[in-house]
């Protein structure tokens, strides 16, 4: 049945359907409604989970780590500065191999204080060993939460589901809420081989000196590489159960395209509208949406853009002193490969600045007249 849900409530219903057992979270704009709804579900007895009020995001993830170590399905949600405050424990989660799932509402880092959409919060956590997903609509949000538990519990690495502040978090859309019984069949209960158990004591997160530390890192990297197959299989499974199709990337009118716009999250939907308008003017443009930042589907992206004339990458984030972060990732992924296209990186939409199809069409026209792909990055919408 279709229900009208905001992105935040889509997260809450996704967590409920996934049968989370422990929720520890601290409220922050624009994530607050996620945890408000979950606490309400727990209070009403609709969700049989332990809801823990904690004094900070650092404690929230610490509580989830403890819960997950006992074999419970744990969930948290945060945004921006809250995610930054979790930083130490983000590393702990992946290195302790705990399949925690969290929702992060992509919001700008301050100062200037800003609660609007920007990806620098989650992209700053790129190297913490979490799988990261970027959603384009509220349907994808609820579906991704459910899939994330299945993937994480197989791979034994955590997943962060990212959704755009306000553009998704506070925007209502019709969402198909999956049936409880079907979700139970799709997502079996979690039962780890090694768990924190007072009747079988062990030491968790113990000392690991130079004689073994490298091998633990090797195993994490190997699991991340294996995760690509697990993600694809889980997406295929999900399609069989629920009829909706996802992947690590999403291609829009790429087959006959000469030029490709690469974007993430809701910006990719805007890019698709821009591509349609450009196509009506006779140019063959397609859109490639990157859904997973980690593991990064470099091979798949290369396969889809090799031989194309030009690629424009739109980044709602910036690595100061370098360039847009997705642009950097794609460039690193295709560097030195045969028939790699010219890549033009554009930064736009920072701190919630609106990204319209017209803006993307102007960027497309800009590369035709004045841009040089050897330049690291361009500003897409700056007032100079």
């Amino acid at each position, binding site marked *: 049945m279709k229900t009208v849900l905001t992105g935040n409530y889509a997260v809450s219903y996704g967590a409920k359907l996934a049968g989370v057992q422990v929720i520890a979270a601290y409220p922050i704009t624009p994530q607050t409604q996620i945890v408000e709804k979950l606490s309400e579900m727990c209070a009403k007895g609709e969700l049989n989970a332990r809801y823990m009020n904690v004094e900070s995001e650092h404690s929230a993830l610490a509580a989830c780590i403890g819960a997950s170590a006992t074999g419970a399905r744990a969930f948290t949600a945060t945004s921006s500065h809250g995610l930054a405050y979790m930083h130490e424990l983000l590393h702990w989660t992946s*290195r*302790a*191999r705990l399949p925690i799932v969290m929702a992060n509402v992509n919001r700008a880092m301050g100062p200037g204080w800003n609660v609007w959409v920007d990806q620098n919060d989650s992209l700053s956590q790129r190297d913490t060993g979490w799988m990261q997903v970027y959603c384009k609509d509220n349907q994808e949000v609820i579906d991704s939460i459910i899939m994330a538990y299945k993937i994480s519990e197989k791979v*034994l690495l955590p997943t962060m589901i990212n959704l755009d502040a306000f553009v998704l978090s506070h925007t209502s859309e019709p969402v198909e809420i999956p049936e409880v019984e079907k979700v139970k069949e799709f997502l079996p209960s979690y039962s780890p081989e*090694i768990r924190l158990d007072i009747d079988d*004591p*062990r*030491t*968790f*997160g*113990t*000392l*690991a*000196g130079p*004689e*073994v530390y490298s*091998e*633990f890192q*090797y*195993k994490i990297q190997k*699991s991340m590489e294996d995760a690509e197959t697990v993600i694809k299989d889980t997406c295929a499974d999900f399609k069989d159960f629920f009829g909706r199709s996802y992947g690590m990337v999403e291609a829009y009118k790429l087959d006959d395209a000469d030029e490709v716009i690469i974007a993430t999250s809701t910006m990719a939907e805007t890019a698709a509208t821009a591509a349609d308008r450009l196509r009506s003017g006779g140019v063959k443009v397609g859109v490639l949406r990157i859904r997973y930042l980690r593991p990064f589907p470099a091979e798949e992206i290369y396969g889809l853009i090799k031989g194309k004339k030009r690629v424009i990458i739109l980044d709602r984030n910036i690595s100061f002193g370098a360039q847009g972060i997705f642009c950097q990732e794609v460039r690193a992924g295709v560097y030195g490969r045969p028939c790699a296209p010219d890549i033009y990186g554009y930064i736009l939409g920072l701190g919630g600045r609106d990204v319209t199809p017209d803006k993307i069409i102007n960027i497309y026209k800009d590369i035709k007249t004045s841009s040089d792909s050897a330049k690291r990055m361009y500003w897409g919408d700056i007032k100079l």
Partner: protein
Amino acid sequence: MIGDAVFKGEKDMPEMPVTIGKMNDNKTGGWRNIAPVINIDKCSGCMICWKFCPDVSIQIVAELPVINYDYCKGCGICSVECPKNAIEMVVEDK
């Protein structure tokens, strides 16, 4: 790693750094350079040393403190906190 486990490579290793043994197997007393010695004649049995010991290495036996040297790291907190100055830190010759 704690215990006697020997790993030839990543395939013998668990996914996460978890030991089979308990934390009790890790006898941290070996880290100690100076050892607390209690002058039991001065001790009033107030149990402040037992409360403060961060490593739970002081046990109370017949209402008086006894140091467990298997785990005491020699931090000296008990000696500083003792209101009767009944605990002296003594350099250990090893």
